[in-house]
C-alpha cells in the first residue's frame, strides 16, 4: 500500500484545516476556511483518479460557503 508524498501532505493539510475550523472564534472566517477544506478534498479526489466526485465537490463546496455566510444573518458572528 503506497501513499505518495504529496498525498500525505494534502491529508495533513486537511487535518490542519479541520483543527483551524474547530478552534476559530470567528464564525465567518471559519466558513471561509472551510472552503479551503473542500478545495483540498478536490485535489485529493483528482489524485485518486475520480474526476466525477472532484467536480461535484468543487461545485457543492462553493455553494455551501454561500449558504454558511447567508445563514450568519440569524446568529451571532463571534462565539464566546
Amino acid at each position, binding site marked *: 500500500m503506497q501513499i505518495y508524498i504529496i498525498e500525505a501532505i494534502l491529508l495533513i493539510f486537511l487535518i490542519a484545516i479541520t483543527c483551524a475550523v474547530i478552534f476559530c472564534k470567528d464564525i465567518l472566517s471559519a466558513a471561509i476556511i472551510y472552503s479551503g477544506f473542500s478545495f483540498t478534498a478536490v485535489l485529493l479526489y483528482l489524485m485518486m483518479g475520480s*474526476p*466525477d466526485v*472532484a*467536480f*461535484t465537490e468543487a*461545485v*457543492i463546496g*462553493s*455553494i455551501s460557503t*454561500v*449558504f454558511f455566510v*447567508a*445563514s450568519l*444573518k*440569524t*446568529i*451571532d458572528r463571534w462565539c464566546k
Partner: protein
Amino acid sequence: MKEPFGGLILNVAFRLLVPFTIVYAIYVLCLGEYSPGGGFQAGAVLSVGVLLSRLILGENAKFNVLGKTSVVLAGVGTFIYAFTGWLTLFGGAKFFLDYNYMPIHMEPQHEMHALGIFLIEIGVAICVMMTIINLLDAIVKRGADNGDVE
C-alpha cells in the same frame, strides 16, 4: 437577498460570469455521457448561475426562480425521472427503467438507451437546482424575518 449588494466592479464581473455559467451547465448536462459530469453537477452549476444573478440584481433578475415555483419544480424534476420508468413499463418492459422498451423506436438499440439517460438526467438536474434554490430561499427568508442579532 431582496436587494443587491456590491459595487460597480462586482456587478460587471458577475454579469460577465452568469451566461458562461449557464452555457457550461448545459454542456455538462448534454455531454455528461462522454465526460465527467451529469445531472447532479449540471443542476448544481445552474443553481450557481441563479445565485450569482440574484446577487447582482436582487429580486428583479431575469434568470431567476421566485417563490413557490421552486418547490413545485423540484417535485416535477423527480416526477420526470419516475415517469421515464413508467414509460418503459407502458412499452412492455419486464422491470423498471429497461430502456429497450421505450415507446419511441430507434434502430440501433442503444440510441433508446441514450434517450432514456438524457431524460433522466434532465429530471435530476431540475430537482437538484430547485432544491438548492429552495434551501437558499429558506435561509435568506429566515434571516430577513429574524432581523438583527442583538
